[in-house]
């Protein structure tokens, strides 16, 4: 199968993926933080991924492909993880200091912004499972946080 001139080569995609993992994703604390970060590189309106650093070092199509691939990898790994692991990652994300734990717990519980963390075109059941697991994990982390606040 021949590649179109504008189509990213597999080697470029692999290089860019390694670059993204080593430079950016490795510095983030846990899979939840990685998922939130990768979902945030996707434009809400067009659904296209963009990343200035990757665009600069590689090309726009390569960056887009790599971000979509990494997003899907992290999402599927988290969505199909045992609930215990999801709870650990969510706890790690909430304690990472991106916002006050009580604020995150309240807004995530009410608005459920984690619904937009799923990549496009994924299996609807995996997406439902992810949303459901986060809902349960939030209840567990919330209960444990409130318990700690009391003592």
């Amino acid at each position, binding site marked *: 199968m021949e590649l179109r001139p504008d189509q990213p080569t597999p080697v470029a995609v692999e290089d860019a993926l390694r670059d993204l993992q080593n430079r950016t994703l490795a510095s983030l604390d846990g899979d939840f933080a990685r998922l939130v970060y990768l979902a945030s590189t996707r434009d809400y309106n067009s659904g296209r991924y963009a990343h200035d650093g990757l665009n600069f070092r590689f090309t726009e199509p390569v960056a887009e492909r790599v971000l979509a691939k990494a997003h899907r990898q992290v999402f*599927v790994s988290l969505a*199909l993880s*045992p*609930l*215990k692991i999801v709870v650990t990652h969510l706890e790690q994300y909430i304690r990472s200091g991106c916002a006050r734990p009580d604020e995150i717990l309240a807004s995530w519980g009410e608005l459920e912004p984690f619904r937009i963390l799923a990549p496009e075109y994924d*299996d*609807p*059941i*995996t997406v*439902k*499972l992810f949303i*459901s*697991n986060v*809902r*349960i994990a939030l*209840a*567990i982390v919330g*209960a444990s946080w409130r318990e700690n606040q009391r003592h």
Partner: protein
Amino acid sequence: MSGTLTLFAIGFFLIASLVYLLRRRGSEEEDVRWFRDRDLAIPTAQFEDHRKEQLDRIFGFEDWDFIRNSTSNRIQQLFLKERKAIALSWLSQLRMQARAGMDLHVARVRASEELEPLSELRLAIDYYAFLAKSGFIAVIVLIGGPMALRGMVGQAESLSNNLRGMLRAAMEPQGFSQNTRIR
């Protein structure tokens, strides 16, 4: 006078039937095009990659054991409610895929010149057996409550395998005719 009215009624009935049949054939052809475009009848490879893990998560023991041993009653109820909803969604998705596969197959068979009644009968039996089995699991989940979900991985997996086999049989051109063509 009454003879004229009867003839008029028969004429109207025939025209209405013709219009209905023409419209129905048009929509069947559209269905065939739609299936070919979207390929919805066959679960895609990317979904199939994680089938086993997905079933383990929905129907397995691991998550329930964790919830039962380390959380309150309220969270246990939440977990069971969520898992029940997902199990029903999964069953409904499976039935939708089976129905889409059969619709496509029926549309193809209607356009074929030669039929193999035995293959068709076998496929129809498989289809209704699949529907019965998925209905049975849905009833267990609905009536037996969320606790009935526990340990159903084997049942769910066999149902999913049945669907794959059935869709494969429905999609095989030689399964019903060598001369099949989509009009």
